[in-house]
């Protein structure tokens, strides 16, 4: 049987190759995903351990244990240990130079180059107290360079009866000239009487650094000082101002080993030393183990990997459909050979084995190609990333793991064999007598069973009900509802796919009838697609899967965007607000400051700002109890600058627009007449009765018209500017410019624009990634279309010749194939888009209906693109088979066999 199988495979090499490509793409997807997963893990481990320098081991004395100098010395003395440093990080150290101030994380200069993490670009690392090395960016912000001095401010515990700090300060610190309010902060009860006082120390900038491995990126970079300075400035010191390591509450030690020292032995020895020093459960780990531990097993790649593998699974399912189709046709083509084999004594099981053996060989060969392809792709991606100068270390070479080789191979072979099971069964049904029939024996037809119909109907009906239930439930039990909806959606989709053989041919026939009006080639194409409904259905279904998912995702994305937009419009109608602060006058009464002159004009001139409004702000008492800010805005201004039209319409003379939260706390109902009075000093002015309009606004101010404010006796200070940005996605730049404009004044900038931009970008990015992943499935399906058409061309050789003999031109024949390709692909795409739209809406309803007012949207551009791509690809898929068909000589029609 082996030899026969191989001989048959050689004869069908072209077909098998096309089918193999589908499997290869799928397995390449899996291999690449797994490899990317290990690389992501590597990168994340490397990023986490980047701050360890090249330390060989990381020791942890255990939670709650604070290392002291004695213990560190003891560890340093352990045989095999070349160097050891306690890991000290002092965050949020305030530093200033001139009138510029920043907060900066500070770490000690390592005792050994092995623990160096930063690259010195200018000057050197501090070697003595009173010196500091700054990250380049920090130096830039402070406008200092090597040789300049920065002033470090820190807090030091001061016993109530303590002597002057100045005299004792070892770093020559001077007592803070300006007493900050927190100056008076006292220690926790039970501690000795005293207070923390702000102290300033001068530090000379001796070096500038960069952080090539992003070791301190999460801290915004790290400045370096001596260990003593770091402890002191970090506030880790005794009451008398002596820096003490034990106060830093660090339990971690970085260890560098002597050359040739045995890691395990040293680790044990260090553990012993730590135990001897009083540690309760010391732990000495390698870098990777430490990284793993600090991620507590979850490095964030797990869920991503699962999601991406889910898409790979979709691609493999589609590939399986393509394979099943190919084998079905191969078996049909070989009917006579198989019958002959049966005639000369092959038993059914031998025929089945032959088909399955062929599938295994194909699956294996294609999977090997796929693994190679996937590995190569990842390697190329790594090369690109290396040249992209990313802020984290990227491995230079792919290291294939066992999983990245074995898993795709196994999946590829199993899927191929599974896909060939049905064709293998059909092959065993070929009767020996078929060998004796004339050439035009009908292809082994498979009549879809009643069982399939029942399964399909149960899944579709049940799934749809679950989906509907999920949507209905989503306002009460969001998580459960979404779960039910996902299950229902998946079930109904699987049902539709299982039943595709029942409905898809009808859809193809209906669309074919429409298309058939456009001339004979189209009629031919339509008739041809109806000839083998099962095959057409399977081919269209393969495409349907990918298209449905793409359409669903983009529908879901636009719907989510529109819904969230609408929600944000209602809750946060102002893109950007720039407000001057409230201050208090000498008697403690609130005073509204005006926006600095020219600010408003400058803000309005920022590119990307669509409209702006300058508002009078005052403090009012509403309902006789609640004090809130009142903003004066004209209805015209409101319509211009607010994103919520309903809210803008509520603004008017005689009304006060009250956010829900304010209304609740003041006990105001919508439509109430409420007294509003301006707060003046400690009392209020003359109240005016206004009609309250309660709105779902997430703010703590009320809106009235400027003339109402005048009536209340407001001074009319223009203290707030509202901006509306033209394109939300540009709001980052707008905010940047607003900040630049207002950097020299204390203006408060708030608004929803950045949040909008953030989530819109998140949705767009997610959509792009998902669509990219699903595109693989679509590509495989299109290979399936080409495959189906090629097989049809071979089967229809005589017909093509007859048509040519009867007067069909080559061009017409090619056109007919093109229409057929477009029809198969187009039906898959049209139905997929329709289903995707439905699933996208229902899914969005299940997820969002409980959170916000659902705004159903149709992503016309995306759907049009999907349809266009499918149609064009269908036509392109027909190009090669069409050429083959057109080359058929008309004489072939007269051939007897």
């Amino acid at each position, binding site marked *: 049987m082996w030899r026969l199988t191989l001989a048959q495979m050689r004869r069908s090499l072209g077909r098998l190759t096309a089918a193999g490509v589908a499997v290869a793409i799928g397995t390449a997807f899996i291999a690449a995903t797994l490899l990317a997963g290990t690389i992501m893990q590597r990168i994340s481990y490397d990023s986490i351990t980047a701050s360890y320098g090249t330390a060989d081991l990381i020791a942890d004395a255990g939670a709650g244990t604070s290392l002291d100098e004695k213990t560190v010395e003891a560890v340093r003395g352990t045989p095999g240990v070349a160097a050891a440093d306690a890991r000290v990080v002092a965050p949020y150290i305030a530093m200033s130079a001139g009138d510029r101030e920043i907060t900066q994380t500070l770490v000690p200069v390592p005792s050994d180059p092995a623990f160096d993490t930063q690259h010195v670009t200018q000057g050197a690392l501090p070697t003595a107290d009173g010196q500091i090395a700054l990250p380049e960016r920090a130096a830039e912000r402070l406008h200092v360079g090597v040789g300049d001095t920065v002033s470090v401010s820190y807090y030091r515990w001061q016993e109530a009866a303590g002597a002057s700090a100045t005299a004792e300060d070892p770093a020559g610190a001077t007592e803070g000239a300006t007493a900050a309010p927190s100056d008076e902060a006292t220690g926790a009860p039970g501690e000795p009487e005293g207070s923390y006082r702000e102290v300033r120390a001068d530090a000379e900038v001796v070096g500038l650094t960069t952080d090539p491995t992003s070791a301190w990126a999460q801290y915004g970079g790290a400045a370096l000082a001596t260990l003593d300075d770091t402890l002191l400035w970090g506030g880790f010191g005794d009451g008398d101002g002596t820096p003490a390591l034990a106060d830093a509450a660090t339990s971690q030690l970085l260890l560098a080993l002597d050359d040739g020292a045995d890691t395990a032995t040293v680790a044990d020895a260090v553990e012993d030393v730590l135990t001897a020093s009083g540690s309760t459960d010391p732990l000495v780990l390698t870098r990777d183990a430490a990284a793993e531990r600090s991620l507590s097993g979850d490095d964030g790649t797990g869920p991503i990997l699962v999601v991406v593998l889910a898409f790979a699974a979709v691609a493999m399912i589609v590939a399986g459909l393509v394979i099943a189709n190919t084998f079905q046709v191969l078996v049909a083509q070989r009917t006579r050979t198989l019958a002959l084999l049966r005639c000369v004594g092959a038993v059914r099981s031998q025929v089945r084995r032959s088909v399955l053996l062929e599938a295994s060989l194909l699956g294996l060969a294609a999977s090997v190609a796929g693994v190679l392809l996937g590995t190569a792709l990842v390697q190329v991606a790594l090369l690109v990333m290396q040249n992209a100068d990313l802020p984290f270390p990227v491995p230079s070479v792919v290291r294939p793991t066992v999983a990245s080789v074995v898993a795709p191979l196994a999946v590829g072979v199993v899927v191929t064999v599974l896909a060939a099971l049905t064709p293998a069964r059909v092959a065993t049904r070929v009767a020996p007598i078929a060998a004796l029939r004339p050439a035009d024996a009908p292809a082994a037809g498979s009549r879809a069973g009643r069982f399939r119909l029942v399964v399909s109907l149960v899944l579709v009906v049940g799934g749809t009900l679950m989906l509907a239930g999920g949507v209905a439930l989503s306002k009460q039990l969001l998580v459960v509802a979404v779960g039910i909806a996902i299950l229902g959606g998946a079930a109904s989709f699987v049902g539709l796919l299982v039943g595709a053989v029942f409905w898809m041919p009808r859809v193809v026939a209906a669309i074919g009838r429409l298309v058939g009006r456009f001339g004979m080639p189209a009629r031919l194409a339509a008739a041809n697609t109806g000839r083998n409904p099962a095959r057409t259905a399977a081919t269209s279904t393969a495409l349907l899967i990918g298209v449905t998912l793409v359409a669903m995702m983009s529908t879901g994305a636009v719907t989510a965007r529109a819904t969230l937009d609408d929600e944000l419009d209602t809750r946060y109608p102002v893109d950007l607000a720039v407000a001057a602060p409230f201050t208090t006058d000498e008697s403690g009464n609130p005073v509204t400051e005006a926006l600095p002159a020219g600010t408003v004009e400058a803000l309005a001139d920022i590119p990307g700002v669509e409209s702006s409004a300058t508002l009078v702000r005052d403090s009012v008492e509403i309902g006789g109890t609640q004090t809130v800010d009142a903003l004066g805005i004209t209805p015209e201004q409101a319509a211009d600058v607010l994103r919520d039209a309903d809210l803008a319409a509520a603004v008017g003379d005689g009304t006060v627009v009250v956010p829900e939260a304010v209304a609740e706390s003041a006990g105001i109902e919508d439509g109430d007449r409420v007294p509003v009075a301006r707060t003046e000093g400690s009392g209020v002015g003359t109240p005016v009765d206004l009609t309250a309009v309660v709105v779902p606004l997430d703010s703590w101010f009320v809106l009235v018209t400027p003339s109402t404010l005048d009536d209340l006796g407001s001074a009319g200070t223009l203290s707030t500017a509202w901006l509306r940005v033209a394109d939300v996605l540009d709001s980052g730049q707008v905010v940047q410019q607003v900040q630049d404009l207002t950097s020299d004044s204390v203006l408060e900038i708030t608004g929803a624009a950045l949040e909008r931009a953030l989530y819109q970008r998140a949705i767009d990015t997610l959509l792009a990634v998902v669509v990219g992943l699903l595109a693989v499935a679509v590509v495989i399906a299109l290979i399936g279309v080409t495959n189906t058409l090629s097989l049809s061309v071979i089967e229809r050789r005589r017909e093509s010749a*007859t*048509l040519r003999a*009867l007067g069909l031109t080559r061009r017409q024949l090619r056109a007919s194939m093109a229409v057929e390709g477009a029809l198969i692909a187009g039906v898959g795409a049209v139905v997929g888009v329709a289903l995707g739209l439905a699933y996208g809406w229902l899914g969005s309803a299940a997820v969002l209906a409980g959170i916000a007012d659902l705004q159903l949207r149709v992503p016309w551009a995306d759907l049009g693109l999907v349809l266009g791509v499918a149609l064009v690809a269908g036509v392109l898929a027909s190009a090669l088979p069409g050429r083959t068909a057109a080359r058929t000589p008309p*004489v072939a*029609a*007269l051939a*007897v066999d």
Partner: protein
Amino acid sequence: MDPFVPAPAASTGPIPPHGAPDAPGAAQPGRAAREAAVRARGLTKVYGRGEAEVRALAGVDVDFAAGEFTAIMGPSGSGKSTLMHVLAGLDAATSGSAFLGQTDVTTLDDDALTRLRRDRVGFVFQSFNLLPMFTAEQNILLPLELAGAKADRAWFDTLVATLGLGQRLTHRPSELSGGQQQRVAIARALIAKPEVVFADEPTGNLDSRSGAEVLSFLRRSVRELGRTIIMVTHDPTAAAYADRVVLLADGRIAGDIVDPTPEAVLAGLDALRQLEVTETPVGA
């Protein structure tokens, strides 16, 4: 009636290269007046090259009169199928000319040949070659559809009535018997009123009763509907339905029988075989 008129070549031995064309005319003065629907002049067709060279047609001159039912006969490998392919514009000639009316089909490119086949030639195949996805009626109308021409309903009805297909028009080929399929194929060949219909072993895949039926339909379409049919066959009984039999041997015209009977055709074929048997030792 003595229909067997041996071609001069058959009795005299080697066939003169350009002797045959005049023979039908000489034998049938009454038909000579008819215009030839199809003519071949010095037609040769060579397959392969060098050692593998096969001369399927070695200079054929023959006329097929319009309104006549002609059978081409000859032993296997005599070139009868090749002659038909070249005459019908299905295959290119190596040299010489083949005229359909005034058109030399050997000079046409593929598109022109396709249009010629579509508009001026009909085909009946041994394996029927109906398109399985179309009904009988759709199959019959196919050539018109391809040409984008409107069906002549009266002509369609005539054909359907003559061929007895009235009850079968909505059936697909798989629901028709072999004889019925071939009758549909004949209707398809005639629907566009072509100048000539080529039939390639039209009874080859049929039982003898269906075969006889099909042949009499072919004859009726010539006698009653005024069509021109050229049929290739190796069955003397089938050939006897024709008005005239052209015998082919070794790529040349080897005889011509007017108003053939099966016996006359058999005798003519025997004469050819005789010729081969006696010639072989001489030639060897």
